[in-house]
């Protein structure tokens, strides 16, 4: 299938529940991909990945190349892609169970090393695909099949944790504001370095938060000036600011560790390789 001749959305049967917040998210992504294309980031060099969960199905719904990864590992998969060929743009879709639970450490370290990747998290406050168990962002008292009497844990605040781990770009979006979400995703994609968009995704079946979000969500005009202010933004519970919450440009990992080299594009040929090996052997003599 040729990418330039096909729609961004694939023809695979969509099996999300009617009304799921993922539809708005998918639409925003489609539009964002087109905008990125207009900016010169073609679909030929945009690679995606996804974790396992309802969120992950977006991998099938997008006619974009990439690798459908494991539960919690999509952030690492795209780092591998990026480091192998820094000319690629990489983006992964994660769930709250997936990226903030099973894969949380990977996010923290990706932020810390400032890997040039974009993460879109479908944060629906539960493990939806496995029938609605509590997740790291489930509110206390959340009832799911592993916590029938209500989850006893306080939810984690993943954005606070990531801001505390020196993440360079943190944003929040809401599928109820599709246009805005599109822009946020484009801006995340444009950012050079680690970027993460936490999407407030209502799950109509297990955690229907439309009403709550419609009431609390508030578009932020400008990112916070300082990291500290950004932390205050994500601590708010009375209001839920959406938009780019914090943005800071910093050197990216692959350029720090392997400057100006592209592992797959700037290869030595066989002869050069043999010479290099021989030289080391000679030094060992």
């Amino acid at each position: 299938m040729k990418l330039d001749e096909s729609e961004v959305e694939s023809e695979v049967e969509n099996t999300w529940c009617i009304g799921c917040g993922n539809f708005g998210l998918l639409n925003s992504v489609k539009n964002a991909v087109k905008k990125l294309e207009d900016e010169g980031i073609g679909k030929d060099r945009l690679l995606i990945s996804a974790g396992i969960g309802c969120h992950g199905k977006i991998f099938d719904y997008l006619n974009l190349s990439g690798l459908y990864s494991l539960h919690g590992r999509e952030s690492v998969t795209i780092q591998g892609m990026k480091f192998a060929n820094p000319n690629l743009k990489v983006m992964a879709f994660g769930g709250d169970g997936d990226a903030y639970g099973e894969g949380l450490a990977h996010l923290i370290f990706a932020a810390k090393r400032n890997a040039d990747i974009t993460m879109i998290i479908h944060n629906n406050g539960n493990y939806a695909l496995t029938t609605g168990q509590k997740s790291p962002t489930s509110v206390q008292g959340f009832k799911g099949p592993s916590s029938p009497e209500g989850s006893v844990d306080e939810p984690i605040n993943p954005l606070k944790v990531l801001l505390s781990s020196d993440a360079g770009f943190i944003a929040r979006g809401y599928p109820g504001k599709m246009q805005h979400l599109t822009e946020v995703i484009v801006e995340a994609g444009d950012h050079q370095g680690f970027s993460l968009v936490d999407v407030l995704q209502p799950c109509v079946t297990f955690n229907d938060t439309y009403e709550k979000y419609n009431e609390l969500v508030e578009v932020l005009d400008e990112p916070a000036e300082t990291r500290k202010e950004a932390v205050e933004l994500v601590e708010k519970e009375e209001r839920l600011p959406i938009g780019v919450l914090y943005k800071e440009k910093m050197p990216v990992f692959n350029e720090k560790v392997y400057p100006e080299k592209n592992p797959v594009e700037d290869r030595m040929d066989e002869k050069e390789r043999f010479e290099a090996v021989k030289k080391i052997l000679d030094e060992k003599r």
Partner: protein
Amino acid sequence: MEDEDVFTYMVGGKAGEGVKKAGTAATDLFLDLGRESFQMNDYQSLIRGGHNFSVVSTSIREVYSHHMEADLIVNLDERSRKIHEEHLAEEGLMFYNLDDSEERDEGLGLPLDEMAKEYSKPDLIKGVAGIAVLAAYTGMDQKDLEDLIEKEYSRGVEENLSFAKEVYKEVEEKIDKTINLEKGKTDSTVLTGNESLSLGAAAGGLDMYIGYPMTPASSILHFFAAHKDDLRVMPIHPENEIAVANMAVGATVPGARVMVGSSGGGLALMEETISLAGMTEAPVLFVLSSRPGPSTGVPTYTEQGDLSFALNQGHGEFPLIVASPGSVKEAFFLSKEMLDLVWKYQTPGIFLTEKHLSESAKTLGLDLDFSDEDGLETKMADEDDDYKRYEKTEDGISALKFPPSKDLIKWNSYEHDELGYTTEDAETVKNMHDKRREKNETLILDLKDMNTVNEFGEGDAVIFTFGSTTLSVREALKFTDIEAKVVQPVFLKPFPIWELERYMDEEVIVVEQNSTGQLAKLLREKCGIKPKTVIRKYDGRPFGPRKLAEKLEGAIE
């Protein structure tokens, strides 16, 4: 028929006293004489103190293993002297540290602590005494010793030179005979197994090495980090082993040749991802360097207890290639060959080795002209084809295409259709299982044309072994009259039954380093070979060739 022309040098002391360095310098000294060597480093899981030793056996012929009967033992402390008492060969010289040990009738003592006190790093400098004693004992010129030290001890060379000369002079005066080491004709290199397999992979076009430290695989990561600019292999040390493995899988999508490495515990953490590589058809080469297990085990020692573990990695069914080199030199060629294979078959491979091969050093000559391996090319899609990542083909192999590309290229951990979209359809599920199984069948056909088993020597007795134990067996055979053929399966999965079945009715002896006889089991189960004797060792230490020779004799008569 003892092969008396092997000279063995041993140096022991505390961690942090430069014991291993002294062993390496000794190997270099022998190389300057045109002699072959094998150096084994025995160390504990600690940074300072305890007891370390390095042992180098040298000869004008190829030496496959160190010996534990030493002609010269240099002990930097009393603990070493005690431990190594039993290792002194007849007529051998025992050197000891008079400041830590009492004066004795036999052997030669010098007050090393006292002498070292004058220097800025009195502990660290002690090791160079080891090389000075060796130089004096083998009648080396002082000038040659100086050259050697300048080469080997580049850090703090002045002090090392001065200390070495002091020791050299004292020893020269006090000993009544020197040993003359015949000159050989070797003009080659000394490499550890880990260096060799790393260089082989680099020669084979490695683009990235991703690793998380774990003995005895850490030195591969260190090697690529040190040679980043000359070998142009990008080294990455991420947060944990799960990241290592998944980063590697991701890196294959744009076509990077990538290798990762760990020991048993780390590889266990990668198991979910090995299965991912099987499903997505991601060609990742995993180096597994074993140490005694289970669990944390005995981190700095050697064992072959991970064979079944390696052969059965990953849930579900997919082709997995496992091979293990029987020599430092083979490590070089095998890592390149394994890279080619995992790429041709787009499936994970495990390069299995052990601490004994990974961290021992051997003299070897390398010829970089690889034999003709045209059969092992990666199948690439044509530019204009209607691309399907998982196209069903006769041999089970689908062509690859790398982004940036105008084609849709989807890799998928779920069961998928040819385009890479997720499927639950019964027929497609079945077809894709068939595809992966057919790939394995093609792989077996390929292997049948390749060298999958090494055989050494001729004779009625048949001795099976694998991995680093091959070294011990080959050296042991120099010390018996047994006429034996040594059979070493290099490939362990798919297991080269076609090469081995003919031993079914022979009297077979198996030598391996684990407690349950895993190779013996494999031979029995896969090839119907019923081993007469299984010689096992599982105390963390490699076989000593002469003791092994006795065991072989016992088993064969």
